[in-house]
Structure formats: structure tokens, C-alpha cells
């Protein structure tokens, strides 16, 4: 694990240096420079100047970053460079024992890091403040949200700026898009519920529970109320939109715009959350209908999700359904297993064989009777498919 390498090994100034090498001590300073020795994406943090201790102390230097324009802290994607209780970037380097009047006469490398672990509030070209805090390890500073608990504990403090560009969405972008993505998830779940032509009570309750759980993730009451309004409106409008469609409508023909809107704002994680809700809706009535299974397949394609991961999630849903896998004999084995009808005979048989191996291997590990029964039904379906496609 080496995202962040501590590289302090520089010489300190007086009192032990010869007179000729002495420089006038400057104030404590910090800067971030590109690390051209390594990758372009790496930065070095350097410090120099007075360390301002009045007696020999074991010093540590902590650094964190802020976005200058918004004064929001930079978060870290790497668990070992965060504050104890938040995701705000924080990294401390032990400088060792420093004597009275000692200082760094020149810039020295404190540490280096990979820019990819930094999560700014927003994407784009940003002026970033690097902040350095000197403190005694006998009297450590605590940080929360990027700010220190006591100025008295800070021996020296320095601040500087550098400019860099962040391509990926920042956490404020993500948060705003996440809210939109949650709202846009509801019509997709409604489409799943309506895939068999009607909204069952059990399906409605699953969506309601999801909305309630989603609202619980918001701390601010105002935000909660705002989201509640939006999510309920999405529920209402998406349901009414389906009611306006002619009888025997096909969900798959009426879902493209819903998915396009969702894709505009949704991250990969948001997409999996939406799919998870759709699978819960599918399982709500205890049956897996062919239209629902086909819609799952269609969603995974249109959301550009990893198919193997979708299969894993679908397997979990199918195996836990209490009643039976299909409510009608008309549900095809192809839909149940997720066999792509466009595959040629050879590829179809290879897929069937692979799925058979998977379910047969799992059968003995499953503990619950209904799970074993469902796994057995999957094996039976695969055997029928083998017969159908193999002859």
C-alpha cells in the first residue's frame, strides 16, 4: 500500500550546523509541487523555514487540503489518509526530535501523494489550498471536517495554493446527482412493477420502503422534506403515466426516456442501487414473471452494467423467492436463466453448461429448504434448455 510516501530525510538548520552554512531562518512555509520523478499525477508536499520550538520536541506535521473557491475540504478516497471519523483528507508525518531554533533552510520533501486519492467538492480546474500544521506529538492536534480543535496546540501553521484539474465528479456534484438519480430511480422501479400489466400492493410497498430508507440517509430535515416531495411526485407521475398507456402496453417500449434521464445523472453505484430495487420489486409477489425477467436483462444492457454482476444479483433474488420461480407455466426457461436468444447453438449450450455447473455446485451449500428447491428448479430449467438446444 503506497499511495502516500513519507520522504522527510532532509537536514535541519542550526544549532548543529557550521556557521558558514547558516541562513537566516524564514517563517514556516509549505508548497505542493509536481513530482516529475514519478508520474505526472503525483504531487510532492514540501516544507521549509522555522519550526518554532522553544525546547527539544518530537514534532509532527499534518497536512490537509481545501478548495479555495468554496472553502470546502478535500476528501480522501484512501482510508489511511483520512481523519479518524470523517473522510476528510489528513496525513501526518513524524519529523522526529527537533531542537530549539532549528529550521529547514531549503525546501524539503515532506511527503508525496497520488492525485487520484483526492476527492474535491466539484470537478474542473481548481485552486487548492495545502495547509500544514506543526505540532508536538506529546500534545497532538485533533481534526474534524478539516479544522483543528485547538489553535494553542499548533506550533506553526502554513498555507499555500496550487492549481490542478479534477476530471471526475466532485463530492458535491455526486451528492446533487445522487439526489436526482434517486428521484429518477422511482420511475424505473415503477416500470418493473408494471411489467406484468399492473401494480401489485406488494410491489408498491417495496417501493415505499425504499423511499423511506432513502429519506433516512438525509440528515437535514429540510432536505428530507424536499426529497420526500420529489420522490412521491416521481412515484405518482410514473404510475399515472403507465395508466395513460393503452391496454397491453409493453413496458420495454415505454422506458427508454426514463432510462436516458437516469443515465444522465447516475453513477455506476446509483445504477446498481436502482437494479437492486427493481429486483426487490420483481420478487415482491413471490414470482418471477417472464416480462419482469426480460426487463431486468434489458435494464442491465441500457444501464451499461456488468452482466456477470447483474446475473449474481438476479441469482440472489431468484433463489430467495419464497413461493416459486414463475407464476405461470408460460415463463420461458430462457428468461429464467437469462439465456440470450440471439446466441448461436454452440454459445447457447456453453452458457447453459456454465450455468448448470454454477447451480449444481451451489446446491449442497444452500441451507434453507426453499433456496435448495429454487436451485433445483434452476437445474431442471437448465436440463430442459440443454435438451431443447442440444438436439
Amino acid at each position: 500500500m503506497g499511495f502516500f510516501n513519507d520522504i522527510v530525510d532532509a537536514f535541519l538548520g542550526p544549532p548543529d550546523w557550521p556557521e558558514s552554512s547558516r541562513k537566516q531562518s524564514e517563517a514556516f512555509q509549505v508548497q505542493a509541487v509536481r513530482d516529475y520523478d514519478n508520474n505526472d499525477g503525483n504531487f510532492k508536499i514540501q516544507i521549509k523555514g522555522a519550526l518554532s520550538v522553544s525546547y527539544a520536541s518530537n514534532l509532527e506535521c499534518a497536512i490537509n487540503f481545501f478548495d479555495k473557491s468554496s472553502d470546502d475540504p478535500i476528501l480522501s478516497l484512501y482510508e489511511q489518509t483520512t481523519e479518524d471519523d470523517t473522510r476528510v483528507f489528513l496525513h501526518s508525518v513524524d519529523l522526529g526530535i527537533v531542537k530549539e531554533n532549528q529550521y529547514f533552510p531549503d525546501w524539503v520533501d515532506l511527503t508525496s501523494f497520488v492525485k487520484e486519492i483526492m476527492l474535491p467538492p466539484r470537478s474542473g480546474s481548481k485552486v487548492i489550498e495545502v495547509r500544514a500544521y506543526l505540532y508536538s506529538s506529546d500534545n497532538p492536534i485533533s481534526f474534524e471536517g478539516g479544522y483543528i480543535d485547538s489553535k494553542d496546540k499548533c506550533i506553526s501553521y502554513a498555507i499555500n495554493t496550487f492549481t490542478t484539474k479534477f476530471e471526475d465528479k466532485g463530492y458535491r456534484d455526486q451528492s446533487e446527482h445522487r439526489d436526482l438519480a434517486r428521484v429518477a430511480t422511482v420511475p424505473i422501479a415503477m416500470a418493473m412493477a408494471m411489467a406484468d400489466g399492473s401494480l401489485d400492493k406488494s410491489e408498491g410497498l417495496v417501493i415505499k420502503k425504499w423511499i423511506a430508507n432513502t429519506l433516512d440517509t438525509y440528515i437535514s430535515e429540510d432536505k428530507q422534506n424536499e426529497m420526500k416531495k420529489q420522490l412521491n411526485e416521481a412515484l405518482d407521475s410514473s404510475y399515472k403515466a403507465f395508466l395513460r398507456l393503452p391496454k397491453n402496453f409493453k413496458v420495454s417500449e415505454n422506458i427508454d426516456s426514463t432510462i436516458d434521464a437516469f443515465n444522465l445523472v447516475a453513477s455506476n453505484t446509483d445504477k446498481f442501487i436502482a437494479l437492486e430495487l427493481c429486483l426487490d420489486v420483481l420478487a415482491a409477489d413471490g414470482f418471477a414473471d417472464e416480462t419482469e425477467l426480460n426487463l431486468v436483462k434489458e435494464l442491465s444492457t441500457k444501464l451499461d452494467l456488468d452482466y456477470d454482476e447483474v446475473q449474481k444479483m438476479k441469482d440472489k433474488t431468484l433463489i430467495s423467492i419464497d413461493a416459486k420461480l414463475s407464476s405461470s407455466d408460460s415463463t420461458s426457461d430462457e428468461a429464467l436463466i437469462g439465456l440470450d436468444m440471439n446466441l448461436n447453438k454452440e454459445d447457447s449450450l456453453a452458457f447453459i453448461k456454465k450455468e448448470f455447473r454454477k447451480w449444481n455446485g451451489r446446491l449442497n451449500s444452500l441451507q434453507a429448504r426453499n433456496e435448495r428447491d429454487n436451485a433445483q428448479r434452476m437445474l431442471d430449467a437448465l436440463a430442459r434448455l440443454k435438451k431443447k438446444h442440444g438436439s
Partner: protein
Amino acid sequence: MSNLVGIDLGTTYSAIAHLDATGRPVMLVNSQGDNITPSVVLFDDQGNVIVGKTAQRVYGEDSKCFGRFKRVMGEEKEYEAFGEKYNATSLSSFVLKKLKDDAQTQIGEISEAVVTIPANYGNKAREATLAAANASGLSIKYIINEPTAAALYYAYSSGEELNGTYAIYDLGGGTFDISIIEIKGSDIEVINTDGVTLLGGDDFDEKLIEIVRSKWKDQVGEDLEPEDFTKNDAEEQKKILSEKEKTSIKIATTKGRHKIEISRAEFEDAISTLIAKSEMTCENAIDEANLSITDINEVILVGGSTRMPCIQSSVEKIFKKVPKSVGNPDEAVALGAALYVAYKADPAKLNPLQKQALSKVNIAEVTAKFFGTIILSYDDHHQKNLLKNDSLIRKGDKIPCSVTKEYQTAHDNQTAINCRVTESNIEESDPDYVHTMWEGALDLPEGRPSGQKVEVTFSYHVNQTMKCTFLDVESGRKAEIDLTAGNSNIHTDIDIDDFKVE
């Protein structure tokens, strides 16, 4: 000289064999003079427990008569007779006791035994089989996979020196197993094993019953009562259809006497999806062994169900060669088990002729499952840490083997690790699809940052036991566990009453 026996505890029939004084594996007959004994248990109103042919006659008709319980070995299913509850383990122990008692009247006290199990059995079913054997009073040191036993007998009984790769196709009354083995002279190496737990003659009988019931309803207009066409009747008709193209079944009930005709083609169509399962299992077993069909020199048929012509055709279609039988398919597993018990026994217990016979075989064994542990791992798709099963020992690793992997603690001040040992038939990362064989905590020192090294070592020994160690490197603290890993050397004093369900 010690009396060592091998037992094939089958779904529909069981058999027992031993190595005779000349070093030949031979069947031991039951008290009725038969080489095989129906695995059926009847409780009569006199308090007697009747096992075998007499019980089989009323199977499906008498509610106190139980069979096919091997299919639920290790599960919680209960059977009730005269207020007492039984499970598959206790019922199996009655079958094993019958085999043991009948054999002892011929060869005297049995000193050691090996019991065979389907290759695809999970750990619970393996443990339950061992418990049944111990409860019957047998001294069990090892269990062996049924196709491995059959392979052993095939290698032993072949008149010529074998050299090549062989498939052992074992389709019995309740389970199907396929083993790919390599034989070079006396060296036998099991390369891969796979199977289907619920696939065998019993399922074919069920399909035949379905056909009969359907035709009956068409002819009579009412449902056929189960006792009017039992599993015994179905088995009998199935055997006829293996010999003839058509069978004519006469059923007499209160609704009159009716004749139902079933053709072999009709029956074969009904069981074709079941056969498809065995075909896919064979293909997967070959793929997993990194072989192709053309690498298989011969296919050996074992188990009573392989007598069915459509099974032989299916095997020929898959392997593109005519399969062979090794002696009586009902007996090969027991005979192989008899060889295995002697092979594993203290040589001092064998006479020179037996030692000479066993010099023809040398088995290199492999692990039958994946063994792993549960770790916390970052999932890219869901962007969060999720529990994941990580395999250490892989299915097919040669025994003995030892694997060490290094992990790290996940949190600051982590004071314990939840250590788990898992098994699975295929390589699985999802903890929901693996069986936890053991779970325990390893306490860690307080006040340390995350990232502390934890070494996990699984060592699978020749005696089929597995030692698992979870070591916190910095403190030296460790959790150690000895597991039976399937083929167990467990010795416990077990009372048959322990297996009656309260």
C-alpha cells in the same frame, strides 16, 4: 488376520465386500444369500426393525417402511414410526448394522470398515454418513468417494496394465457421479470428480409413475392411488423397459382392471431432461480437468441404472466411444471399497497374498472441494466493502497440500477476527453460496492501527484431515482447528438413540 470390509451404502441397494485370504475383493452375501441388500427399513408392530428384501416388498404401501433416505442424508427430514422419530442417519445405521451382522456370520468380527459416499456430498452429508456407520457399531477410519472406489476396482481387476485417462460413470439409485482418473500401471490418480446429488434410478421410477398416473387418468377418468402403482412396481417396469421395447402394466383397483402400455421411447423421452443433467455434468468434469473428449481412453459404467439402454447411448454420445462395464455394476463400488480399506490399513494386518494384491494399486488422492475463508474486500461495482469467500485450497489439489495466504486487519483498534473455514463444490466468491465448516474468533491486542498482517494456513493431510491456522503475525496469537474435511478419522461413541429426533 483382521477382517476389513468395504461398504457401498446405496440409495436403493447396499452391499458389503472384503478382501479374502488370497487378496481378492469378494462380495459378502446377506442372510437371504443375496450380494446386494435393499436400503429399506421397516418397523413392525412387534417392535422389530426389518431391513432388506422383506421390507422392500411393502415399500410404498406401509407407512412404517422407509427407503431412499440417503438422498436427504444430513438434512432435517424426519420419519415417524410408532411414535418414534428417525432421520436419514439413524435409518442408514440400521442398514449398515444389517450388512455388518450378516457379514460377521461369515467372516467373524469386523475390525475395520470403509463406507463409500457420492463424490458430490457436502460436509454435512459426509459427517452424517460417518455418524451412521459409527452408530451401527462399525469401526470407520475412512470414507471414500464412490467413483474412486469403482476406479480402484477397475484398475485392480483389469487383466492388463492400464495406461491412460478413464472416466468412471456412476449412476446409481439416487446419485450420479463422474470421475476422471489417470492410471499409469499401479498408480491411480483422481484428476477430477463431479456429480449430481439428486439424480438416479429413483428419479426415473418417479417419471414412470407420472406416465402411468397420466395414462390411468386418461383411461379411467380418476386419479390413481399411490398404493396401486408403487415405486417397487415402477422399478420392476423400468427393468422390463431396459430389456423390451414395450411393457404392458396391469393394474387392478376398485375401479376395475386396466392395462396400461408404455413404450421405451415414451419412457426415454420422459427422462431425457434427467439424462441431460448427467451429460452436462460429464462435460463440465472434462472441462474442469482441462481435457477434451478425445483424451478419455475408456468410459467405465458403474451403478444399476447404467443398465438402461438410453444411459449407455447417452454416454456413447458424450464420450464418442462405447462404454465398458466392470463386472457387476451393482458391486464394483463395494469391491473397490474393500480394496481401499485394506490399502489404508496397517500392513501388519494383511497376509502376504493380500499385500501382493495391493501392490497393484497406489492411489494419489486429490481434494474433492474448494476450501476457503471469508474476508472483507472492496467491491468495485457497489463501491463498498463486502464479505467475500477467498479460496485457499482448490478442488483437485493433490493431497497432501498446504497453502498460506496473507490478509490484513480492516480497522484501527480491531480486537478480534471472525475466522471461518468454508467449503464449496465450485470456486465461489459469494459467502451465501459456500458452506461454513467452522467459525470462531481470534482475539487481537488492542490499540493497533489497521493493516495488521494475518496469515491463514490450510494444510490438508494424507489422512484426509485439514488443519487450519489463523495467525496474527505481530502478536503471535493464533486460532487453530483440525477439521475432518470430508474423509474423516473421527472416532466417537455414538448411541443409535442419539439419532432419534425428540
